[in-house]
C-alpha cells in the first residue's frame, strides 16, 4: 500500500541528515558548547579531506590509516587555529576585557579571515577543480535494504556520528574536562577564579572539535568521491542551521535537527523543484528563530 518511493526518499533524507550531523557535532562543540564564535570549521573539514587525499595518493595506506592521518591534521589545525585566531584576543586578562562582548565577537572576523586564507592557500596549492578519490577507497557501494537502496558509507557515517555523539556526551557530562568545558563556556571569568586552566580547556576543545571536523571531511570525501577547496562551505551552513535549531549548546539537539533538515530537504524535493530545497534549511532557521529563540532543544540560559 505504502509507496516505496516515499520510503526511498526517507532513507535518502536520513542519510543526508547524517552527513549534516557528522559536521554539526564538532561545530556545535566549539561554537555552541564552548560558546566561541568560530567560522573556520568548514576549512578544518576541507583540510581533513585534503590530508586524507594526499596520504592516499602518496602511499596508498589502509583506510584506517587515512582516517588517523586526517585526525592528526585536524588536531594540528585546531590547535593552530586557536593559536592564530582566538588566543590573541584573550591576552588581556582584566575583568573588563574578559566580560567584553566585542572581544568575544571579534573572533567572528579573525576566524573568518583564517578560513579565507586557508581556502585560497588550498586553491593555490591544489587548484580549485574537484580532485577524484581513487575508486577502491570510496565508501559508496550500493546496499539494498528491502525496497530501499543505500550505500555502505551511510552505515559508516551513522556509526561514526553515533560514536562521536555518545563519546562527547560522556566527555561533557561525566568527566572533569567536560565539566571544565561547561564551566568556561558558562562563565570564563568565574572558571578562572575557581582555578580552572581556561587556556588549556579551550585548546583541548578546539583540538577535539577540529579532529571531528577533519574526520567528517575525509569521510565526506570518500563518500562523494570528490575533494575540492570550497567543499566545506555548504556543510558548514547546514551545520550552523542545525546547531541554531538545536539550541546552540545541545549536541544531541543539533544531531536531531540535522536529521530533520535532511529528511525535510529530500521530502521537499518531491513536492517542489529541487532548486528550492535549500530554502527548507533557511526557512527552518527563520521559523526557529521566531518561534523558539532558544532552539528546539536549548536550555533556557542567558546567552552572551
Amino acid at each position, binding site marked *: 500500500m505504502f509507496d516505496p518511493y516515499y520510503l526511498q*526518499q526517507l532513507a*535518502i533524507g536520513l542519510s543526508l541528515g547524517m552527513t549534516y550531523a557528522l559536521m554539526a557535532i564538532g561545530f556545535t562543540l566549539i561554537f555552541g558548547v564552548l560558546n566561541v564564535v568560530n567560522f573556520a570549521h568548514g576549512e578544518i573539514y576541507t583540510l581533513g579531506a585534503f590530508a586524507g587525499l594526499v596520504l592516499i595518493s602518496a602511499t596508498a595506506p589502509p583506510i584506517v590509516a587515512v582516517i588517523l592521518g586526517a585526525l592528526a591534521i585536524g588536531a594540528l589545525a585546531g590547535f593552530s587555529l586557536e593559536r592564530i585566531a582566538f588566543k590573541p584576543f584573550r591576552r588581556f586578562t582584566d575583568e573588563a576585557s574578559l566580560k567584553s562582548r566585542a572581544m568575544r565577537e571579534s573572533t567572528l572576523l579573525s576566524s573568518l579571515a583564517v578560513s579565507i586564507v586557508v581556502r585560497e592557500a588550498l586553491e593555490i596549492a591544489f*587548484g580549485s577543480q*574537484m580532485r577524484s578519490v581513487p*575508486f577502491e577507497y570510496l565508501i559508496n557501494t550500493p546496499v539494498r535494504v528491502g525496497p530501499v537502496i543505500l550505500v555502505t558509507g551511510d552505515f559508516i557515517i551513522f556509526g561514526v556520528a553515533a560514536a562521536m555523539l555518545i563519546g562527547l556526551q560522556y566527555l561533557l557530562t561525566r568527566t572533569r574536562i567536560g565539566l571544565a568545558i561547561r564551566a568556561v563556556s558558562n562563565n570564563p571569568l568565574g572558571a578562572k577564579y575557581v582555578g580552572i586552566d581556561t587556556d588549556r580547556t579551550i585548546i583541548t576543545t578546539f583540538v577535539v572539535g577540529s579532529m571531528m571536523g577533519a574526520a567528517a571531511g575525509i569521510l565526506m570525501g570518500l563518500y562523494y568521491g*570528490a575533494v575540492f577547496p570550497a567543499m566545506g562551505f555548504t556543510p558548514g551552513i547546514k551545520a550552523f542551521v542545525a546547531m541554531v535549531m538545536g539550541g546552540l549548546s545541545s549536541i544531541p539537539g543539533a544531531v536531531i535537527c540535522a536529521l530533520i533538515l535532511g529528511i525535510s530537504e*529530500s521530502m521537499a524535493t518531491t513536492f517542489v*523543484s*529541487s532548486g528550492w530545497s535549500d530554502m527548507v534549511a533557511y526557512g527552518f532557521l527563520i521559523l526557529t528563530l521566531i518561534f523558539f529563540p532558544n532552539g528546539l532543544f536549548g536550555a533556557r540560559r542567558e546567552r552572551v
Partner: protein
Amino acid sequence: MKFRLLTLTTLTAAGIAGSAFAADTVKLGYQLPLTGDTAQYGQDFRKAAEIALTEFNAAGKPFKVEIVFEDSRSDAKEGTNIARKFVDDKEIVGVLGDFTSGVSMAAAQVYKDAGMPQLSQTASHPDYTKISKYQFRNIATQAQEGPYNAKWMAAKGFKNVAVIAEQTDWGQSVVSGFSDAVKANGGTVAFSEFFNRGLKDYRSLISKLERAKPDAIYTGFFYEDGAQFLKQLQQLGIKTPVYSTSAAYSPKLIELAGGAAEGVHLTSNFLPTDPSPNVQHFVDEWKKRSDGAVPGQFPAQAYDAVRIMLAAVEKASPNPTREKVRDALAQTRDFPGVTGKTSFSADREAEKELVKVEVKGGAFVPVAD
C-alpha cells in the same frame, strides 16, 4: 540620435588610434573567474590564452600583444566592474570572456555602450549575442545543440524524455532549446526540473525523476555536477540512458565518475584524439603545462577564441581600434581552429560543427549515431 552615437564612436575610435599609434604593443582584456567556485574553468582559460599568446608573440609579427587578465569570480557585479575598467583603459581594443552567460551578459551592457568588441569562449545563452553588434561567441548555443540532441535521441527511439538542468541562465536555455525541439519532433517531455549548481546529493531528484518513467534523461550540467549525478544514478541502480550537452565534455567527468560515466552520450566540437596537426600541437602544449592532462572542450574553445581575436587584431592593424577589431571579428570566415572551422554568422554566432560522442571504456569515443 544615431548621428550622435556615430560621432561619439568616431571620436572614441580616433582617441584610441592616437594612443595606440605610439606603442607597438596592443592590449586585450580577458575577464574570467580565477578564484571562487568556478575558478577551475578560468584557470584553464588563462592557460589556453597564454599558449595562444606565446605562439603569437613568438611568430615575429610587427607588434606584440599583451592580455590583461581580471578575476570576475563568476560574479555579475564584479564582471561589470571589470568591464568598466577595461573600457576606461584606452589601450585595450578587444575583450575576451566572461565564463558564464550571466556574467558575460552583465558585462556586455557596458561593452555595448562603449563600443568594445567582446568575444566569449563559452557564453551560450541565446540572448547574449542579441545585446549589440559587439558581442561574439565561440561556442554552439543551446538553440543549436538542443534541437541537434533532440533529433539524435528521437532517432534512437526515445519518445518520452526527462530534462534536468542547473538553475542558471544557461541551464534554462538548455531546457527550453531541447524541450521545444522534442515537442516539435512529436515526443513528450515527461519531467523537467532545475537543480542548484553544486548540489551534492541528487538521489532525491533522481528518485523523483524515475517516477515519471522516462525513456532517456537529457541533462544540462558541467562535469562536477555531472559526475555526482551519474555516480548516484548508478548507486540507485538506474539504467536509463543519459544524454548531455558539450558543457559536460571534459576528461574530468570520466575521472570523477569512473565506471558510472560509461554509456553517457553527448555532443562536442573538440576531440583531443583528432590527428590533425593543429589539434595535436595544442594538446601537446597543454600537456606540457598541465602534468600530462588532456584538455577538455572549454580550454580548446578559449584557445580558439584568443586566436580568433588575435587574428582580428592583426587584420585591423596597423593602429587597431575597437571599431576596426569588431569589424575584423565580424569578417571571420572558416577560421581553422582546434574546435573545427569557425565562421561568424551575420548575428555574430559561431557556426560550429557538432560531433556525437559516447563514453566507452573510460574514454570519449566519437560515434556515428
